[in-house]
């Protein structure tokens, strides 16, 4: 990030109401393909960039979450507003660019007035003027500029028309400010009371009347006729832009229908989660085969020594076992992006608000919970859009129970053990049940915590759900695609090093100190000797020592130290469980496919010191249950600490979820055994 900023150059902050084209403008100015969002409140962190080189002068541009007023209603709005008065790192903006949707002029002028009243230097970027024209109106930027006493520039978000003028105006304004000195903004929140709002909106209606003019019928007759067919005229007292997009109204009549709306909602959710499994399958096979082959070739090339083992088993197989779920993460991000871009997510939030409010959550918890299926970290960050503190903390509390994508490789492996490849549809069904279980457990948890709300989460304020439902639009597929690519990349930049370090560590602990065990090799084939050496080396390794130490905890749930070590290493990141199993069971290159070799080693494994199989349907199901509940992710705990403001909630989460996981695993394994399933 630091390299993106030029010290000592002016700071320009972009603000605007949600869906006013703010992020699109940021993309034009910064030249980066940043996210344009259609779900109100999806930008939860700042984006900062310098102005594109082609504009020939230096400035930093800050993009922040959308706001509709300078009085914050939720933490994400507070982030933006605080940054306006003084950003913790970049100080007070020299200039503020405010994006205003021309077709929503009277609503969006509120922010302009508040900014001007607070003494900010602003330029207004007027967007969606084409939409206003389709409604039959022209808007005069010079008139609006005169009314507000600031520059107003029309911007076309699709073509980028107007960007040059905007940059020109930025340059002129900055020069003027430099010459005259910038007045410090005043924090006058208390002045923005109800009377202020009422009189402001009266002014805005007058301004709107002054600056908009009806397009002459003769000129625009054909267009107007077309427009009247497309738009629903609510109020014939023109001037007011009380038109709605009829297509949106028609779609809403179905998607928000009391019966169909719910059915479609469930179908959309079902498609989302099944496609994670089905669409990713062939891609996962490719990753699997190529890493298996790579490991095999490297091992053959380097010969039989510790270095060769480190590279092929420690690094290649360790990474491969995790990279195998890249396709699944990518597909999940892709679908979430598509749903967000069309405008459906806001409707989804509206549909589930009532049921969620029953268990102490909010309709706005919907998007964080849904993102929780990809990764808990962005999910916890996005809870900042929830205005009510108690609802926000409760949402953060249960997010680790949503089945995140890091659990997928674990489930994929365990389900593949339970169900042979021929019956992959059963595995798909089982995966769906795991997701349903994760939803049920999180809602039950929420309602229980909600009952004890004052003991665990002590905060109470007004519960509220006021959300704009944006007009439906076709998602820009290329943007969604590049967004999911970026999300997956950022995710792996974070997870990648940890995975590599841990794979190396686990390899070290399973390989040393007795790395060259003596085996009585008389009358044995070379292959047999290697196999005996492997198991001898492992059972006298550091990992085995640690494992035997925790053995008493593992015995009641029917597992031995090797699973214990894998579970401990999975605390760094859940997906490490798979690579750790691969290492501990010394999956080498008997076959070219990684997953199937882990499976065949698992099928052979016996509980140490006994003749009983370690992995049985009962213990595998137990492991799945463990992963459903356990909070095995250090990053999640760290983010939870940051967002809740203390260690209290993450510590409760950690111990509670781990205890529940162990308890249910114990009950599952022993329950299944009691009814004869071993």
């Amino acid at each position, binding site marked *: 990030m630091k390299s993106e900023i030029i010290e000592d150059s002016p700071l320009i902050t972009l603000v605007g109401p949600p869906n006013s084209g703010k992020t699109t403008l940021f993309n034009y100015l910064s030249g980066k393909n940043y996210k344009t969002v259609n779900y109100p409140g999806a930008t939860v962190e700042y984006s900062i960039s310098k102005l594109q080189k082609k504009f020939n002068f230096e400035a930093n541009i800050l993009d922040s979450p959308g706001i*509709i*007023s300078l*009085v914050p*209603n939720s933490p994400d709005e507070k982030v933006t507003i605080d940054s306006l008065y003084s950003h913790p790192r970049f100080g007070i903006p020299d200039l503020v660019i405010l994006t205003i949707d021309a*077709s*929503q002029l*009277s*609503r969006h002028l*509120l922010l302009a007035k508040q900014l001007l009243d607070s003494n900010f230097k602003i330029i207004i970027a007027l967007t969606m003027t084409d939409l206003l024209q389709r409604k039959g109106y022209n808007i005069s930027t010079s008139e609006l500029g005169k009314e507000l006493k600031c520059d107003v520039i029309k911007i076309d978000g699709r073509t980028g028309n107007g960007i040059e003028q905007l940059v020109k105006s930025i340059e002129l304004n900055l020069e003027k400010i430099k010459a005259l000195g910038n007045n410090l903004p005043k924090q006058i929140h208390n002045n923005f*009371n*109800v009377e202020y*709002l*009422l009189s402001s*909106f009266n002014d805005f209606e007058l301004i709107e009347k002054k600056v908009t003019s009806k397009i002459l019928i003769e000129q625009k007759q054909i267009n107007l006729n077309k427009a009247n067919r497309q738009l629903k005229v*609510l*109020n014939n007292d023109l001037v*007011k*832009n*009380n*038109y*709605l997009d009829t297509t*949106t*109204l028609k779609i*809403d*009549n179905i998607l*928000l229908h*009391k019966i169909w*709306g*719910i059915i479609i909602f469930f179908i959309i959710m079902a498609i989302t989660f099944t496609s994670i499994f089905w669409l990713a399958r062939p891609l996962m096979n490719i990753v699997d085969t190529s890493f298996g082959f790579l490991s095999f070739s490297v091992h053959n090339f380097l010969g039989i020594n510790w270095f060769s083992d480190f590279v092929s088993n420690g690094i290649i197989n360790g990474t491969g076992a995790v990279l195998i779920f890249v396709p699944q993460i990518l597909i999940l991000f892709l679908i979430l992006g598509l749903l967000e871009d069309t405008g459906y997510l*806001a409707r989804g939030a*509206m*549909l589930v*608000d*009532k*049921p969620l*409010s029953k268990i102490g959550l909010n*309709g706005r918890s919907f998007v964080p919970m849904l993102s929780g299926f990809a990764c808990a970290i962005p999910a916890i960050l996005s809870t900042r859009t929830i205005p009510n503190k108690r609802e926000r903390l409760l949402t953060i509390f249960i997010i680790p129970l949503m089945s995140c994508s890091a659990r997928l490789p674990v489930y994929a492996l365990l389900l593949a053990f339970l169900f042979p490849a021929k019956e992959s549809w059963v595995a798909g069904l089982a995966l769906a049940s795991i997701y349903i279980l994760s939803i049920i457990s999180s809602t039950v948890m929420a309602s229980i915590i909600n009952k004890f709300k004052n003991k665990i989460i002590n905060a109470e304020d*007004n519960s*509220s*759900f*006021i*959300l*704009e*439902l944006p*007009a439906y639009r076709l998602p820009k597929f290329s943007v969604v695609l590049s967004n999911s690519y970026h999300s997956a990349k950022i995710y792996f930049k974070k997870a990648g090093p940890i995975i590599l370090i841990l794979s190396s560590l686990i390899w070290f602990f399973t390989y040393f100190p007795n790395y060259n065990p003596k085996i009585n090799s008389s009358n044995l084939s070379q292959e047999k000797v290697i196999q005996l050496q492997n198991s001898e080396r492992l059972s006298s390794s550091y990992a085995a020592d640690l494992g035997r130490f925790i053995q008493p905890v593992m015995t009641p749930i029917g597992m031995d130290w090797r699973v214990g070590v894998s579970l401990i290493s999975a605390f760094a990141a859940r997906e490490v469980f798979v690579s750790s199993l691969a290492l501990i069971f010394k999956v080498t290159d008997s076959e070219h496919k990684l997953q199937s070799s882990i499976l065949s080693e698992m099928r052979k494994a016996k509980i140490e010191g006994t003749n009983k199989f370690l992995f049985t349907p009962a213990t595998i199901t137990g492991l799945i249950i463990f992963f459903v509940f356990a909070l095995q992710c250090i990053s999640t705990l760290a983010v939870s600490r940051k967002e809740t403001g203390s260690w209290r909630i993450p510590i409760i989460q950690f111990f509670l979820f781990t205890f529940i996981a162990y308890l249910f695993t114990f009950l599952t394994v022993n329950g299944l055994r009691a009814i004869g399933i071993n």
Partner: protein
Amino acid sequence: MKTAAELKFGETGIIHEIDKSHPSSRRILEVGFTPGQEIELLNTSIFNDPIAFSVRGSIIAVRKSEANCIKIL
């Protein structure tokens, strides 16, 4: 006087005033529900709550308990 929460599906009304004692009244005003504006009840969610209104050319979903502070003529 009835409130916006009592509007029927597809029914329109003109806002008379906003109940300032309601904790959400400021946000209700900020999103554009001001006296004199015409609103229409466009959609209701499952269990009839939240409900979506058209106001000033956009669609805003609010909870019934919050729509109660919007008084209709």
